[in-house]
């Protein structure tokens, strides 16, 4: 019987990844997530609080893992975040989507873009043309190869975190990795 250690197979790089916080931080918390997944929605404020408490010691990376069979809006929502990213506003859209998980229809996504002051015409065109679909797919496949087994799936410094994601657990886990570093 073989076993496999779940490690991140696609390294984090500023060229392809969305990174929040100093890329040189000793801790990297990476999430594979789905904007329509209620568990990811619940984890969002926890991640924000972990970031706030860890400050410059942690950077946060988000990659898309849309479970499209159970979440019909997840794929386009992920592409919407990328389309906002193309206009330099990835994280604003990311936060907004997690804060409005009940409003992820095609029309809602355009409304979110409008609310963020994006070039809505360009945004809608990029979604219609699937411009960002390959990036979302690349994220998804990298997650599969890294052992993502559901969402949200966290990696701390490249190693899959299998614990709970309430604040105390997640904070405890990143602090433990920092101490061991």
């Amino acid at each position: 019987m073989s076993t496999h250690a779940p490690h991140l197979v696609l390294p984090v790089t500023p060229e392809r990844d969305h990174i929040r916080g100093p890329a040189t931080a000793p801790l990297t918390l990476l999430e594979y997530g789905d904007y329509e997944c209620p568990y990811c929605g619940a984890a969002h404020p926890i991640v924000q609080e972990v970031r706030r408490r860890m400050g410059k010691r942690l950077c946060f990376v988000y990659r898309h893992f849309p479970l499209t069979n159970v979440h019909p809006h997840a794929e386009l929502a992920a592409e919407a975040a990328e389309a906002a990213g193309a206009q330099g506003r990835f994280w604003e859209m990311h936060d907004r989507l997690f804060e409005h998980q009940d409003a992820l229809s095609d029309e809602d996504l355009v409304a979110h873009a409008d609310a963020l002051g994006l070039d809505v015409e360009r945004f809608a065109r990029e979604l219609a043309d699937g411009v960002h679909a390959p990036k979302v797919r690349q994220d998804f496949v990298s997650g599969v190869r890294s052992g993502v087994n559901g969402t949200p799936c966290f990696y701390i410094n490249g190693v899959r975190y299998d614990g709970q994601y309430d604040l105390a657990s997640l904070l405890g886990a990143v602090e433990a990795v920092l101490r061991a570093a």
Partner: protein
Amino acid sequence: MSALQAGTKAPDFSLHTTPDQSVSLHEFRGRRLILAFYPADWSPVCSDQMSLYEVVRPEFQRHGAELLGISVDGVWCHLAFAKDRKIHYPLLSDFEPKGEVSRAYGVYHKSGVSERALFVLDESGTIRWSYVSPIGVNPGADGILNALEAMGGGRRS
């Protein structure tokens, strides 16, 4: 009881996937096949293994592999589960005699359900990789893809 290992010929079976349709292992001769035994339908939504495999299925297919899910649930249960989770690959019912196929593969758990076990079969029906996950842990799909990649060839893009 321990799971059949790589190099073993996979035991043939014929199991119902709907009330009037059954699927047999030998029908897949000449193709690669993934057998995913799992304890039960209706585990929690977002971390559900069978649901994940539906989304990952195009990656399996790129390696020329088909996929079958197997549990001891009845066909009506499978139908309702597949419909709810939008699962389009066959879910087989190891229901009568209960767990017979799971036993043949060495993955019947004493609690009366299948283990969470994965088998990757080659074109000749020989097991090339097997893995039993702790019953409460979704093993993901990376082990399957690594096994398919190690088999080389067979890639359809």
